[in-house]
């Protein structure tokens, strides 16, 4: 459908010169770091925190916070895109590659469902969390990740809309089928590619 011109609208066009190509369709640049969550921010003591890889109700591997932080980590700088329309360029994170974590278990599952404190879940194809595309991040911009941004640790899957980068993540459940997580159940897209503007079911 061709859109009608909005009489008198010009727009701010905030993307820096030469950087327009980093802005997916329908997104705008922000310098802030907005927060979007469906409920209260959970606060879990690190002594009680674990990260687990599960399948069919069984825990295949689990790390305490201390064990998790002993796993080799890396710094990653990526652009992030929220379905609520903001994009933030060059965000700097430190985290453990999901490749490293999944490398500790034997499996051939095609999908994962990330699960979190507070009951949040989100579904992802295994190929989108492996091959250097996803991390369990615990630092943002050189500081421990704030609880409202998902601390102590959140998933970071920057090539998909940011709701896939589940806050307060506690593990990955290996799945045979692609089953909708929290927002996906409420009408958001099953995959969420910002470059194809897959915001809502059917996009």
């Amino acid at each position, binding site marked *: 459908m061709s*859109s*009608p011109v909005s009489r008198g*609208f010009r727009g701010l066009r905030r993307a820096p010169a030469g950087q327009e190509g980093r802005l997916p369709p*329908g997104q705008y640049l922000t310098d802030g770091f907005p*927060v979007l969550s469906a*409920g*209260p*921010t959970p606060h879990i003591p690190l002594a009680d925190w674990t990260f687990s890889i599960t399948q069919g109700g069984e825990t295949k591997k689990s790390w305490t916070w201390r064990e998790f932080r002993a796993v080799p980590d890396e710094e990653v700088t990526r652009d992030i895109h929220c379905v609520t329309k903001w994009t933030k360029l060059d965000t700097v994170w430190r985290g453990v590659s999901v490749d490293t974590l999944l490398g500790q278990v034997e499996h051939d599952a095609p999908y994962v469902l990330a699960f979190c404190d507070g009951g949040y879940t989100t579904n992802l194809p295994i190929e989108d969390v492996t091959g250097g595309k996803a991390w369990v991040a615990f630092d943002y911009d050189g500081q421990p990740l704030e609880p409202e941004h998902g601390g102590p640790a959140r998933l970071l899957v920057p090539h998909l809309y940011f709701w896939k980068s589940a806050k307060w993540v506690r593990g990955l459940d290996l799945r045979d089928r692609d089953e909708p997580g929290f927002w996906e159940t409420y009408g958001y897209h099953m995959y969420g590619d910002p470059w194809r503007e897959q915001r809502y079911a059917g996009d």
Partner: protein
Amino acid sequence: MAGTALRGRLTWQVATVAALTRETTSVCTIGLEPPDWPGHRAGQHLDVRLTAEDGYRAERSYSIASAPGERLAITVERLDDGEVSPYLTEELQVGDELELRGPIGGYFVWEPNDGSPLMLLAGGSGVVPLRCILRDRLRTGSDVPARLLYSARTLPDVIYRDELGQHHDGVEVGYTLTRGQPPGWTGHTGRINADLLADAAWPAAANPVAYVCGPTSFVETAAAGLVGLGYPPGRVKTERFGATGGT
């Protein structure tokens, strides 16, 4: 029912601007007539898309202000450094076309058959979806007791002030003014905090359901405060905004 919403495709449609109502110096309600609105539930939002002559586009989400069954309306606050809100609140005229799609969101939603007491906490323009819930409650004849606590900078910043001032059985509306109070003000003052919530919120024993909407700092404080009062986290639904704010 939760989880069954929105499996169909949300297509863009061109609505006609049918009415513009100035709510405060920076807030405007836009009445819209889309050709094919599928209906919505209280608390949902919609996406608006503007297109410049050269094809440049900007999209934003806005909470729906009108109750299901009423003429569709959104209420928009002008952000000084905004791209879309200054256009919607100052340029837009009755008769203009406005591209939109929706409704969106299925979690921050109130169903009229929910019998739980309603605890509504609004920060600034976060009152918009909560006003939608209150109007839906009234239109559907729900008799659940409802409390709205609305945090605004000053009295002239209060959106829907006349409407919220009308008496309805079972509805209590309270304010806290954070940046200045008129002479003789008897409402709350200052930012929301645990003491204020303990004073103003339904006790957890009443098994209320809470809807909290506003800037991030407001929502963080309000939601944590309700959990501190014993509200189960799953009974506190939040919607945060602060698109251009800090962390």
